[in-house]
């Protein structure tokens, strides 16, 4: 553990960030490094609880107290090795995870959890800085061939693990670059893309083949893919976005959030982007109060929007936990994203009645809603008109695009529209496995990474016909 009474001596030090005015002027990351001394102190706040709720709270099963302990002892390398044991890509989770571990930290009861996510980021960055992250190809190849379809977080983590187990892995990606949602869905100010590039380069050096621009089901049939491999993993994400069912939804000036975010990321990467959706000088409304909405908010502010308003249909969450939402569960409270700290406004409990505009969006009509027995119903006489000339739709995702897949295989879907798998990630088709958002529905990157790893272990066991040699996150004793 850290220092016995560390948590009483040192307060939680949140991540230092560049000032808002400065960071709005570029698209680079803004979280700054802690520095060795601070980092050690912050790790020293860890109490090494007999029951580390954080360790359950982390979907990867990261052994948080163990790496904190090593860090506190000054053994950065040992800390990193413990982290790597359960998390192949801590440089991703250290940047873009909402840190359910911190929500479950015992010190979070008093709202000052250990800065686990930041420590994770620093460990990852230090490892690259010290040159510990070097290609470690498996000592032996099993001769089994595995195809992973989709190079988002689930696909990458599954490919990484299967490769470690000695299987020959090919990753297929329909886009022209590797990374899926990581690359295109997450703004650079949260995750700069060289971070992905250096990871992909390592994976390639370790023997994984990446094939981009191949849309399975179109460029190549699923059937052929299956025939050419001992196992196929479907990690295609949940790209089907929820649509706005309101008159005027097809007006110019109305765009899905993903289109908007992708464009900016491509722009940052130096690509030429035709028909750019740009917020400069515009009055922007974002429908959707979640992470994607916040990403749009930060991007719009950086583009120089005249105003940005983020609208959430659900009521404003409470500032503190409700009695029915006790620690260590995920706190259902009002929280401010880093983009919300940068500017813009948030509105709650409003729904869109219709969009206004002739040739282009000029505004929208909204009305208040209130919950009523699990549903939201409009409140009479609350209609209002807002001026807007750019509307971004960030209302969530409905599930994976299964159309092509189901043409070839009788693949079962769940009621939620995701791929049905057994506890070992197997679909009903032998050799066909699925993981990530395609199975879980749109969710956190860390869940996708975790599913990729767990799925890899299941596939490895299936290929070997005996227990997998890959580590797993262990039992799941979640607290709801």
């Amino acid at each position, binding site marked *: 553990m850290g220092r*016995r*009474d560390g*948590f*009483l001596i040192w307060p939680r030090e949140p991540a230092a960030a560049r000032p808002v005015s400065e960071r709005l002027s570029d698209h680079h990351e803004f979280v700054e490094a802690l520095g060795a001394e601070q980092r050690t102190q912050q790790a020293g706040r860890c*109490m*090494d*609880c*007999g*029951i*580390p*709720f954080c*360790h*359950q*709270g982390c979907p990867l*099963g990261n*052994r948080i*107290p*163990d790496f904190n*302990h090593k860090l506190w002892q000054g053994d950065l390398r040992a800390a990193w*090795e*413990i982290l790597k*044991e359960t998390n192949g890509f801590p440089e991703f989770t250290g940047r873009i995870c909402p840190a359910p571990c911190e929500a*479950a930290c*015992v*010190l979070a*009861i*008093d709202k000052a959890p250990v800065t686990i996510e930041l420590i994770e980021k620093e460990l990852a960055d230090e490892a690259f800085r010290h040159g510990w992250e070097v290609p470690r190809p498996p*000592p*032996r190849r099993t001769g089994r061939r595995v195809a992973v379809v989709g190079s988002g977080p689930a696909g990458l983590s599954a490919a990484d693990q299967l490769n*470690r*187990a*000695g299987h020959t892995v090919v990753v297929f990606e329909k886009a022209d670059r590797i990374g899926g949602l990581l690359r295109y869905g997450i703004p650079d100010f949260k995750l700069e893309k060289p971070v992905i590039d250096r990871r992909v380069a390592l994976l390639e050096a370790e023997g994984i083949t990446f094939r981009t621009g191949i849309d399975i089901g179109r460029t190549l049939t699923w059937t052929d893919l299956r025939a050419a491999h001992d196992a196929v993993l479907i990690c295609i994400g949940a790209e089907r976005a929820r649509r706005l069912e309101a008159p005027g939804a097809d007006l110019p000036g109305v765009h899905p959030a993903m289109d908007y975010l992708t464009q900016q990321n491509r722009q940052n990467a130096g690509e030429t982007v035709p028909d750019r959706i740009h917020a400069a000088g515009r009055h922007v409304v974002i429908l959707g109060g979640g992470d994607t909405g916040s990403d749009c908010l930060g991007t719009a502010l950086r583009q120089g929007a005249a105003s940005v308003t983020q609208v959430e249909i659900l009521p404003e969450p409470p500032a503190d936990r409700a*009695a*029915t939402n*006790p620690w*260590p*569960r995920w706190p259902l409270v009002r929280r401010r994203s880093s983009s919300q700290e940068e500017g813009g406004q948030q509105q709650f409990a409003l729904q869109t009645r219709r969009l206004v505009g002739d040739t282009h969006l000029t505004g929208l009509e909204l009305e208040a809603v209130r919950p009523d027995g699990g549903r939201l119903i409009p409140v009479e006489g609350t209609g209002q008109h807002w001026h807007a000339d750019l509307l971004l739709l960030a209302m969530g995702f409905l599930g994976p695009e299964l159309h092509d897949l189901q043409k070839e295989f009788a693949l079962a879907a769940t009621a939620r529209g995701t791929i049905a798998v057994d506890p070992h990630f197997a679909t009903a088709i032998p050799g066909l496995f699925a993981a990530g958002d395609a199975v879980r529905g749109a969710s956190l990157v860390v869940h996708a990474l975790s599913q990729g790893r767990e799925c890899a272990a299941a596939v490895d066991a299936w290929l070997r016909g005996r227990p997998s*040699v*890959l*580590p*797993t*996150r*262990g*039992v*799941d*004793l*979640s*607290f*709801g």
Partner: protein
Amino acid sequence: MRPEPFGLYNPVHEHDACGVAFVADLQGRRPHGTVHTALEVLERLAHRGAAGRDPRTGDGAGILVQVPHAYLAEVAGCALPPPGDYAVGTVFLPPEPAAQAACIALIEAGVVAEGQTVLGWRDVPVDARALGAEALASMPRIRQLFVGRQRCVPSAFERRLFVIRRTLELRIRAAGVDPQRHFHIASLSAETLVYKGMLLGSQLRGFFPDLSDPRFGSGLAVVHARFSTNTFPSWARAQPLRYVAHNGEINTVAGNRGWMEARRRQLLSSRFDGSLDDLWPIIDPEGSDSAQFDNLLELLHLAGRTLPQAISLMIPEAWEHDPSLDPARRALLAYSAALMEPWDGPAAMVFANGHHVGATLDRNGLRPARWVLTRDRVVLASECGVVDVPVGEVLARGRLEPGRIFLVDLETGRVLMDGDVKAELATRQPYGRWLARNVIHLDALPAVAPPTPLTGRAQLRQLSAFGYAEEDLDLILAPMALEGHEPVGSMGNDTPLAVLSRKAPILFDYFHQAFAQVTNPPIDPIRERVVMSLATAVGPEGNPFEETAEQCHQLVLEGPVLTPEALARIRVVEAGAFVPRTLSLLYPAEAQPEGMEAALEALLVAAAAAVDEGVNLVVLSDRGVDSEHLPLPALLAVAAVHHHLVRVGCRTQVGLVVETAAAWQVHHIALLVGFGAAAVHPWLAMDAIAERWPATESIPRYIASLEQGLLKVMSKMGVSTLQSYRGAGLFEAVGLDAALVARHFTGTSTRLGGVGFGVLHAETVERHARGFAEDAVGSVLPVGGKYRWRRQGEHHQWNPRTVALLQAAVRQGDAALFAEYEAALDAGPELRGFLLPQAGTPIPLAEVESAAAIARRFVTGAMSFGSISAEAHETLAIAMNRLGGRSNSGEGGEEPHRQVLDPNGDSRKSSIRQVASARFGVTTEYLVQAEDLQIKIAQGAKPGEGGQLPGDKVDARIARVRCSTPGVTLISPPPHHDIYSIEDLAQLIYDLRAVNPHARISVKLVAQAGIGTVAAGVAKAGADVVVVAGGNGGTGASPLSSIQHAGVPWEMGLAEVQQVLRFNGLRDRIRVQVDGGLRTGRDVVVAALLGAEEFGFATAALISEGCLLLRKCHQNTCSTGIATQDPRLRARFTGKVEHVVQFFMFVADSVRQRLAALGLRSLEEAIGRVDRLAAAAPQDEKAHALDLAPLLAEPRGPHTTARFCTGFVERDDKRHLDVGLIAEALVGPHKPPRVELTRTIRNTDRAVGARLSGEIVRRFGAEGLGEDRIVVDFQGSAGQSFGAFLAPGVTFRLAGETNDGLGKGLSGGRIAVFPPAGSTLTSEEQVITGNAALYGATRGEAYLSGRAGERFAVRNSGARAVVEGLGQHGCEYMTGGVVVVLGLTGRNFAAGMSGGVAYVFDEQGDFASRCNRSGLELSELADGDTWVVRMLIQNHVRFTKSPLGQRLITHWARVREQFVKVMPVEYRRALELQRTGDLKEAS
């Protein structure tokens, strides 16, 4: 004559203790008066014996006398030759005529076969009218056999008689002519004769009319009254035995017997013509520990040793750490150690043959024995005052001292003191020279380079393959290597038994350490280190019948843990006759499941062959594991080789050393030694340490930690020396196959059976694969997760899910969440999960008793105020009081204001008050306020161990309630210093009942094999409730190895207790409470069906008020504000009474629903209905191997029908001396005027003053009556606990002497004891009081004009005392008060003293060498001290008229410089801080 095992009961666990005495004539006469007096003594020791269910059936009593020739010659019915030419035997025979005739025929043939003649038989007259039904039902026919001596000298005659007797015992048993096993020869000798039976001491005289015949004379009489932990018919088990009468318990008897087996081939004596082989086993494994001791003593004596010689060989004094010992005596003891391991345990051992009678005490003086000498006789007994001797006739009084022998030569009439006896023994042979020439010391051997340590990946592979986890390095090895101590943890163990674990646990994990409870005391291995020894000898032993120089040709080691260098030297030692050989423990990895057993059997053959080839030093080694080779578990190998060599009779020809990777922590080393290894080299652990930390410091620290831990493991079983611990097998296996255990861990209990070689092999393979599987991925060790929950690690019942569910359920009042919580726990891998309640005809829920009624059976576990915060403690108390259940104070006292109700009617009072070993805050007020007084014998987290509350947790408030000083560390001793045996427990119960006749008295035990018989003893000792705690539970801080490895689950303990109580017909008189890991309604129902009436919850209740199992209780950093005294953290406490109440109501509701499904209307209907439980058939291979039937066994017998307690037994002692005092002194409701009373007192008047004090404090509060309102002048010998809990305002003056426990818990009264008028003896040379005087005293004064026994003022926290000399361990653990010693102190003075001051008059100037100076300062008196000391001595003179005191006052100016002030450094600093005001009063 003892019952067969059934269920979980095994008769080997019986214990007994007693009163013992002898009377010897010093004039060479054989008067009847000796016998008469001895019987009177026995009658006055009646309270030390016991009766069972039937008050008229005693546990046994008897007398040993010289053959009363004059009497026998007249009554024998046959002509007797002169004394010495014939022997007489007392023979128990079957009452059935046919069986009796068959036995007699065999006996007569046996006598003739040895060349002797049968002179005749005599029916011993008996008068059985006074006997109880059970004694009567099992009564044998008692006859005396007369055997004529033929063709042998008298000394050879005794050997012939022994051969006859032993042959007959074997033959009659084998012939099966006596199916009821009545046959027993109580004695058969030409010198002594035994009369005994299943009697009360008071019945002996009447039962045997012979004893009252004036013609029946003897120069000596040894008497004994037995207190057994059971009431099974046991005429044969009564004592005296043939040579001894024993009060105490031999803890190591199994090992001692084993070692005698091992010596079988070496046992050659020219004195026995034939081989002893025909008489084997010499030590009857079915005999009691005392009987087995008697067996060996008899053999050693008949083979030529004198009784004192044999006794000092078997019970040597503690010599190892006593530099003041005479060198010749030291050499004798060192030489004796080479011959034989001590028989270790509490013992007042009286021994006699026709010529000598004597007694000795164990090395730690754990039993009392007092003697009084007159011109014509000497009486030695467990108590003083058992015989009335006119003052003028007393020549001397004394007490037996630890390890010392007291001997009477009946022929010369001389009384020999220890010094004389030992001096004679020490000069018989040139022991010193023998030792110097033969003993080999390690550093004298040539240095040899050890193997190169493994590092890096190669080491990692080995660590993985041997089952190390990362936490073993971080949590176990690191603290040992860096800080030099074993790691401490808290909050118990909620992981599965090894047999239910799926994580391939190592073999060590299947074994649980045994520990002492009630029937013998654990030792404090730190504060009483002087009596312990880790010395170990490697190498062959010789014939213990002989004394030759070669017998000490052994390699002697200071301790059993070897460095690489040490093993390298030993491995090649060829000095003298040493022939070492290494045997490998590896076997092929491709072996099939049978491979392990085959490899083991091959090893056994190799080991035996090696011995035959002359090898006398075997090293078992598991070095060299690689991808092709698996290791046999080192423990299995050691135990198997040890027992195999014992079986073939050559074990003592060879020394056994283990070089193993498998052992790294204390438990492992303890097991290897406990199953026979002389020394252990944990090579891989040492390699791992050496790679991580600088070896020159870390390895010695690691060894020191292991050895300190080993001392602790030994001491928790009450074993002092490693030599006795070795091979004693003081462990219980849980989940191992019975056949495997029987063969390779012979004698160890494994009551539920379990896994065998197949699983052990598979688990070895699984661990091996972690290190050597071809494609193992990863470069770190497995996480383990045994000590802290980890997702990848071992299962824990308390985990994020169950804790979060429970808290959410109780806070939200959500029954659905509680159901989810229960389901998650009930599915966990625990024994109770396999005990399925069998549904009956369900009844409507409304017909089941209310939840409120059920909740009244709930209690919370003992957690002291101090270990947890006031907020947490009081929340539990209020909740339990609202529920009508009971909360438990724990052992930290209780603030008196909690007696006052809150404005809303809530009560913060703990209705259960603990009386634990430290007696913190145990004042008269505390006791009288209790509804339930709980004597904590052991606690689940660390049975057999003491505890410590670090000074930084002792704030002003805690200090006040514990009667101590803020900032000063508080130590709880491992034993209660007034409970070293079962009859001591009875005494403490008697004391507590005297002070508070209205409280229930409960006794808390921890589950282990044998708890049932202890519980039966507890019932017989007069307790109202017995608490069975599981070995896993426990909220307290404790060494991790104890949390994990001591005690067994409550299911086993509870089932055994229920079975044995029922079997003994005692169940109806005592309630059974269970705790230690109860969590759900299912747990309550299973516990009820197994026999529990009340149910304790600790951890679950804590979680309900906010505990998150941080396991930081020992660090004062609990962030939930529970287990901490830090005000910053206490402010974070969020627990609510309502949450705790909600938890218990949820459990009660769950119980109701389950009862309804079972068709039972109340919990009472469920209690003890084991017939409503069925064993599940688990799918899991490991669990499937368990045999759960013993848990569900039901005893059959005449008195077994009661399944629960039918009502409390009326135990009020209306003859208590205080009854009259109260009647005279406390008249009316107001404080009385001053009264002065006089009384005569005798040893049967016990706890005098306790009842009076309880009454005073109940009526007038803790401040009692004020100064000197009641003054009582006593005359005589006071019984135990004189002046116990004496309240302010009461003064006792006693002209005479007292027994043990004077001023126990003194709470403000004053006691003065002085010699009676007319005594001419020098007071400072006479013993005036017994052991453990002023134990736990908190206030008051004591003036004793004479010497005291051992442990004077132990745990005194406030009393002031003056005494004229004392025994060993004086002022031990003292935390406050003042003690002035005007005479000599024994060894180890002030051990563990952390507060208070002692002033010792050190006339000889050598006091410092007898003082345990750790943490103490010795200084001269300062001016302030002078005033105090002088005032106290003046008081002493005023109250006792002490001539010594008077002398000192007269010469004060001169003598004051000879006083030494003894003061703990920590205490002085705390006082200074207090003065400067740095320690603020806590809120």
